[in-house]
């Protein structure tokens, strides 16, 4: 009998992945809102064609983190950062890195569906038009492809000219996902995309995420543990601005290495 009674080390394959498959690499990143140290020494590698879930109690820094990935957090006046976030091996904090260029590659979907007060068609065509596409035929193609990609084409194909406010919340959220897809991004950031949706719409968005990861890399902030365990490949647990544990989702939810992770996912605090 050769059973070791020593503690097991949790395998973490992040470090062995080839650099070409890394979409985002965060290195010793810190962020302050004024005097509030909101993110502390974050080190994370986000891999291509994976769904990465970020979980943690309110105020732990998870939304701040994904808003940093497309530099949206800079809209807050008192924000200060240190460290690096490499997107495709280039530091997004570099002075010559144009934020428009970054956001063309990184789409975002928010907690509440926020379509523009325009037709469904114009919502999807908005981004491509800004990027200079005027040809009606090409725009038609992009709109159809994006709506199909967001699994909502069949539901709205006959009402493309209707106002996007006229459809259900779940449909609006998928319109927002289609709008993000229209600019052909590399990464999609999702900040609690189903928290305002009913269970059926939630399931549709979750199924969509599974489909989309074939072509995109997805980072999703969620308060729903079951959602994180159902749809993500990796999960990061944030607490008080730190990454407590970042590992394969299967490990996090079956045998987490850190007691604080276990306590959080088991509902002992938070």
């Amino acid at each position, binding site marked *: 009998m050769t*059973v070791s009674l020593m503690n097991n080390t949790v395998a973490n394959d992040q470090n062995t992945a080839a650099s070409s498959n890394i979409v985002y690499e965060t290195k010793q990143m810190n962020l302050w809102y004024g005097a509030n140290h909101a993110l502390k020494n974050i080190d994370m590698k986000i891999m291509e064609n994976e769904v990465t879930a970020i979980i943690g109690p309110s105020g732990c820094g998870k939304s701040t983190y994904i808003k940093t990935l497309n530099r949206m957090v800079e809209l807050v006046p008192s924000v200060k950062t240190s460290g690096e976030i490499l997107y495709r091996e280039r530091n997004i904090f570099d002075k010559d890195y144009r934020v428009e260029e970054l956001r063309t590659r990184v789409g975002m979907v928010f907690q509440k569906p926020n379509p523009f007060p325009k037709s469904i068609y114009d919502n999807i065509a908005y981004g491509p038009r800004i990027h200079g596409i005027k040809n009606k035929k090409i725009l038609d193609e992009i709109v159809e492809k994006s709506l199909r990609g967001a699994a909502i084409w069949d539901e709205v194909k006959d009402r493309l000219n209707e106002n996007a406010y006229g459809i259900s919340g779940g449909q609006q959220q998928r319109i927002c996902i289609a709008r993000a897809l229209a600019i052909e991004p590399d990464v999609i950031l999702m900040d609690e995309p189903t928290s305002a949706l009913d269970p059926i719409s939630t399931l549709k968005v979750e199924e969509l995420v599974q489909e989309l990861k074939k072509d995109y890399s997805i980072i999703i902030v969620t308060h729903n543990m079951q959602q994180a365990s159902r749809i993500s490949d990796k999960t990061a647990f944030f607490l008080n601005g730190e990454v407590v544990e970042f590992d394969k989702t299967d490990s996090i939810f079956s045998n987490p290495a850190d007691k604080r992770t276990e306590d959080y996912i*088991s*509902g002992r605090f938070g």
Partner: protein
Amino acid sequence: MSIRERFDLELNETQEQLIEMSDYAIAALNRSMDALMNHDIDTALEIIEDDAALNRMEEEINQHVILMIAKQSPVATDLRRLVVTLKVAADLERVGDYAVNIAKETIRIGKQEHLPPITLLQEMHEMASKMLHQVIEAFIAEDIIKAKEIAEIDDQVDDLYGQAIRQLMRSGAEDPERMNQVTQLAFICRYLERSADYATNIAEQLFYLVRGKRYDLNS
């Protein structure tokens, strides 16, 4: 009471159900051996009848655990504890079945005088019963070091099993008219050996509960 506290309370309840079930299963095994040694047919019949209660206990534990999984969606240690509870309950139910099998062989042997290897069977039973009793104690205390020590005793039970079978074969060769009892005692040997294996299984389940990984303590 918070939802988490209520969940902990329910977890404790399932543990208590499991302890009650283990007491019952081990008692059945002990009684079946007493019945065998004393040629006590009445007790053997009682053991067969009482097995339904053990099956009911397992069913209640299953129901309780399934409801907890459905309603609370447990993860990590909570989930492992519930899965392990189901498996240990199934193992204890099997030990109860072996007690029934021993009781049935006891009835078949009736008043015939036992062949000499019966003393080895007594030894095997003492070890298996002690292993089961101690592994449940280790399980309650979540003491994997003790669980590993208990699993190691299984090798001794296996040795005794080998010796007993060899002696029984010799007895059969010397006195072919008693071949029936040789077969019956050989079956009982097998049931005792398997009961000890289930103690090892429970030790392995404890490792999974504590470590989150599977260990083979039987090799």
